């Protein structure tokens, strides 16, 4: 691809292509290191595992786009997973759609609390969600009454659903859980790129003053972003319940940082206003791929794995930043040349 055609692509698309390229390189690298690496099973592992995190990362991206952060998503996932599990244990014949709605509404309620405090009480989101992270987790500890949900008490449809093979090609299976996640990410992407109200999230994040001048109620936009983040965390809680079946009070612990890592690796700017949910989805896949491959890589011991994962994330982000900056410079230079040429033509 030459310089010109590279510049013709949008920065978002380039970022996504770069992520795909990096993922490919990492796959190739581990393929040389680990026996029997590239096969259908690897796809099954990664795709099943990202189904939960992809939803959380999508919600996190919406919040980060508005220049905020949501640290409470992990606790929300844990609480909704447990609450949905309790409900279905008490009422095994409950309509599946109602159970999903219950989890989503519960999560949205948690998001609403965050959003009101951030948008209307003007408390910085990092403070609000740090507090609600602890609060929601403590609510879960209280609510659970030291009991845990076990997969024995769940109906078969729920436990079987995430691993249901929808498409099978040899070893490789595209499973229902993964398809649901992909669908939701895709819908969020369509909304963000096509719907005017959703575009406001970008406007508020990239320039709040300008957004206000344009008549956008930025508080409402922030509130909605938090509600959506909570709702997606609630859906992730449902998926978590379905996939793991056994829910204790540690469910979803640390997911807030993983979702932020996935978003940032996926090219979502932590300063708001720039990024895409597709990018965050690819970021989720990349982080999961590195994490699970490192476990199988004999050279890295248990104690170094986290450090290596951290370093790889740093490298990914640094390369991305350098690449985008260079591209910006090339673009600026081209704009300058065009302007000069136009001036030359005029005189």
């Amino acid at each position: 691809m030459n310089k010109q055609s590279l510049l013709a692509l949008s920065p978002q698309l380039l970022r996504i292509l770069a992520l795909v390229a990096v993922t490919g390189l990492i796959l190739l690298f581990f393929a040389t290191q680990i026996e029997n690496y590239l096969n259908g099973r690897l796809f099954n592992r990664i795709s099943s595992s990202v189904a939960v995190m992809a939803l959380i990362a999508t919600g996190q991206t919406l919040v980060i786009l508005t220049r905020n952060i949501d640290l409470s998503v992990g606790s929300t996932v844990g609480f909704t997973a447990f609450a949905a599990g309790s409900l279905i244990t008490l009422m095994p014949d409950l309509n599946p759609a109602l159970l999903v709605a219950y989890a989503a509404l519960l999560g949205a309620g948690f998001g609403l609390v965050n959003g009101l405090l951030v948008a209307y009480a003007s408390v910085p989101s990092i403070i609000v969600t740090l507090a609600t992270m602890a609060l929601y987790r403590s609510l879960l500890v209280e609510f659970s009454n030291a009991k845990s949900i076990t997969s024995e008490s769940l109906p078969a449809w729920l436990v079987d659903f995430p691993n249901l093979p929808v498409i099978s090609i040899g070893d490789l299976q595209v499973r229902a859980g993964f398809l649901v996640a992909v669908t939701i990410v895709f819908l969020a992407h369509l909304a963000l790129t096509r719907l005017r109200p959703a575009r406001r999230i970008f406007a508020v994040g990239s320039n709040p003053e300008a957004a206000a001048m344009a008549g956008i109620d930025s508080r409402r936009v922030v509130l909605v972003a938090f509600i959506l983040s909570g709702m997606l965390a609630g859906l992730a809680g449902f998926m978590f319940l379905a996939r793991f079946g056994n829910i204790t009070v540690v469910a979803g612990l640390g997911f807030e940082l993983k979702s932020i890592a996935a978003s940032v690796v996926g090219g979502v700017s932590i300063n708001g206003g720039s990024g895409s949910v597709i990018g965050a989805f690819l970021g989720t896949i990349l982080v999961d791929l590195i994490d699970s491959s490192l476990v199988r890589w004999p050279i890295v011991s248990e104690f170094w794995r986290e450090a290596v994962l951290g370093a790889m994330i740093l490298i990914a982000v640094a390369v991305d930043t350098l690449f985008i900056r260079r591209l910006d410079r090339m673009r600026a230079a081209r704009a300058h040349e065009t302007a000069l040429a136009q001036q030359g033509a005029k005189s």
Partner: protein
Amino acid sequence: MRNIGKITALAALLLSTAAIAHADTLTLEPGKEVNMVLLPKFLGILVFDQANEGAQEAHKELSNPGKLEFLGPTPENSVAGQIEIMTTATTQKQGAVMLSNNAGDQIAPAAKAAQDGGTKVVTWDSPIPSGEGESIFVAQVDFASIGVVMADMAHSILGGAGEMAVLSATPDASNQNAWIEAMKKALAADAKYKDIKLVDVVYGDDQAEVSYSRALALVDKYPNLGLIMSPTTVGIQAAAKAMQDEGLCDKIKVSGLGLPSEMVSYTLNGCAPEFALWDFRDLGYLTYYTAYGLASGQMKGEVGETFKAGRMGEYTIEADPGRANAKRILMGPFTVYNKSNVEAAAK
């Protein structure tokens, strides 16, 4: 069990003929006012709640007019939270803290300060590795015998030969680490285990999703793996679910330490044919008797001292064979669960 207790008492009696006073069984006088804190690793895990039930039972039985509080950190704050609760208990002049240690030796300074301030520190489930700041450890079972039991379960499941991997809790959980070491020793000590190969030890952080993906990573890493041994109730359950979800139970079995109520379906369908555990209610009960005896000044906490722990019978303080300069009370025994007895225990 009673017999073992009697034999131990007899042994202690024979060993300490010089100090005959110690060999007399002490019956604790009820009704002394002692405030005590039961401090689990964190709140919201079934086994710790069972330990609390046992402690509450003993609290009533000894008609202690003081307060028994069940205080624990939230899961994401376990280490710092335990140290904080220990320190608070010291300033409150609590009579005793009963600790299931999750903080390794990091808690030793706080425990020492507690002892200096007159608060006894009785550990249960998981001791302070160095023994510093600890009055006595109430051991659920002999740590060396856990090693033998796990080696025996591996031997029977693998039919005497095959590859096994360990899925543990956190890398700094002192009880799990001690049990894994004990199992390694047991495997090396007897020629009948010579064809069992321990290929790896990985850590699932006592979280369902991490344990689940670590279990699958083990499967991918070791094509000839026959058994995953998980000495933690969270890990064994997650590993069994992962094997069942991926249809691997015919090839790879799961064993370790688990709760019958959480493992029953996996035992019946053959994914986890055998596992072991002790009674956490009894552990809480015995720990309470020990702490009450020490804090009310009726017991000195010296090696050779024998006392009567209510319904559970007589126990003797002995030197901890696993830790130099540390003392323990050995509860024992544990039950091995399989198809024949798991259903009855799960109720």
